[in-house]
């Protein structure tokens, strides 16, 4: 029997913003890096994102936000993740997000956030490293 751990990543777009070029490029790049990517599509509420992440038992939630609503949406997702006991899941993402906001979100517990000009290689590496450091998913949450 073959035991095979795959990194599973939810890639989604919360809120009303429909600019999905980056999300799709990243989704394809993560697939090409050997990950299983659940692409949720557009206009997701934080509730939908967290419930999807739960059902899919993902390692990582990666959200793309270009609308400027990140200070509302990301903390809300984080809160719902905590309510659901998803303490072994990384919340990361990218978009038009200022350095100050990135820092503030980082303090709340959001992982690294990536701006325009990021290479997909950086994102792949970040996720792989994070999952390595976390270690394998275990039964207990």
């Amino acid at each position, binding site marked *: 029997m073959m035991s095979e751990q795959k990194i599973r990543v939810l890639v989604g777009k919360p809120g009303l913003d429909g600019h999905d070029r980056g999300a799709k*490029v990243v989704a394809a790049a993560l697939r090409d890096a050997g990950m299983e990517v659940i692409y949720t599509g557009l206009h997701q509420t934080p509730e939908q994102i967290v419930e999807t992440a739960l059902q899919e038992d993902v390692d990582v939630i990666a959200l793309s936000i270009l609308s400027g609503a990140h200070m509302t949406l990301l903390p809300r997702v984080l809160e719902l993740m905590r309510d659901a006991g998803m303490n072994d899941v990384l919340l990361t993402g990218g978009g038009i997000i200022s350095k100050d906001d990135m820092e503030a979100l980082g303090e709340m517990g959001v992982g690294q956030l990536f701006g325009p000009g990021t*290479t997909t290689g950086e994102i792949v590496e970040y996720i792989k490293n994070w999952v390595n450091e976390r270690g394998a998913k275990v039964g207990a949450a």
Partner: protein
Amino acid sequence: MTPTARKDRRDDGRPIVQEASTREERMAARVAAWRDRRDRQSARDIDFTTTSSMEVAPIYTPLDLADNDPLEAIGLPGEYPYTRGVYDSMYRTRLWTMRQFAGFATAEETNQRYHFLLDHGQTGLSVAFDLPTLMGYDSDHPMSEGEVGVCGVAIDSLADMETLFRGIPLDQVSTSMTINGPAIIFLALYMAVAEEQGVPSDKLRGTLQTDILKEYIAQKEWLFPPDPHLKIIVDMMGWCADNAPKWHPISISGYHIREAGSTAAQELAFTLADGFTYVEEGIKAGLDVDRFAPRLSFFWNAHNDFFEEIAKYRAARRIWARHMKQRYGAKNARSLLMRFHTQTAGCSLTEQQPENNIVRTAIQALAGVMGGTQSLHTNSMDETYALPTEKAAKIALRTQQVIAYESGVANVIDPLGGSYYVEALTDRMEAEAEAYFRQIEDLGGVVAGIEQGFFQRELAVAASRYQEEIDTRRRVIVGVNDFIEEDESLEIPILRIDPRYEREQCARVAEVRAKRDDAKYRAAMKSLRQSIRDERNLMEPVLDAVRSFATVGEIVELMRDEYGTWREPSIF
């Protein structure tokens, strides 16, 4: 595709040297000899491709234009097929309109910004709405949380629209409004404000974006399925032809297609295909093509590759004129004119070393001008961080002024006309677009292509290829994958939208609902619903609804209820 169409070497690779008799043959021999010399030179180890990953030859010569009759294909400005420009004298008569897109927070704040811009020499207004408005949600809808006033101005009802244009006489400015799904509501709101100002609708100049097809393809801000949206657009085209003859009810947009990752040729082809679809819908609905086509306008992106962009605009003019004349039987010369607005490429801006964005924008803007644009928006250097600050927005406007008044490019019409490269590239763009038109036709048209995810897939593939070129450094982006500055610290200020605007706006919309004449509102909404069911032109019922202070969200909700919603196909 080889850049030179004709054979100028033997099968063994040696150039054909012969007693060249004609000029063309002498040219071919010279080019072959040059190529031999060049082949002995080393070349830099990079891909010689355009921004769209299209390979280009090291040189273009008259041989590349062998099939191109200069009179037929290139001609002169103001005459068919308009390759060189839509007007006889272009910028000698009137410079392009410098139209900076602006809007943030509330109508009150944005109104102040408009006064500032008009005072600084801007000649047209361009309204940026926030996402809830674009998606047809009122500011107090749960989906709007955190988004109110963030990427543009929040407009919930006629009350906000009155504030937005306070002190701006609508018969003296031209206004562009970037809104698509709820476009008919905004046409009605603008007309209602003009009514209150005492300006008749036939005096109003401006443009509504309205282009829903590119929303399904690229920007993803649709409200209903394609068919009802197209029906509403035909309503708007018909109403404007009768009542607001100077108004452009639709601006067929390639900008967002490009921003979503397309190549220049895809932007060209998909946008023109969208345009043809609107023309066909209008004709199908019984409108005379020469009544509405003169009011169709276009909106293109200006990306980094200077010549490729110029070729794109020139090809667009020629293709549009040909199809309008030959395929749709337009008789009025004005129906053949591809008039357009240009915006520099937001997606080309980098977060790293943001000041470099000023330079990128200048090059892109220059391409727009040399391509013969009718109006232009230049992006601000700080747009990868947030909405532009006043200073950054001013530099962007000044960039246009430097081009207009200092560079000298506005002195001569189509200054690159006749350039072997630009003409060859224009021909190639046209050929690529025509190939796409055939493919789209085989799919069953634009709407069928959208439902099958064809365009969306093409864009995703092109975007991934472009990113891969950057990731592997086959494409250099200054400051991003080369010429990187370590420990770069941000030295430009950031515009922040105070969250209090959202609270204020929510209070305002609640107040509007509380204070309006409820009976009048209900009657207007009832009549709108009935008009939808009877498939009547919706413009007058929507006008009545906005006059009764029905909110944008309420009207859209009623329409969603009648028309349904639409979900994107999965393209992976």
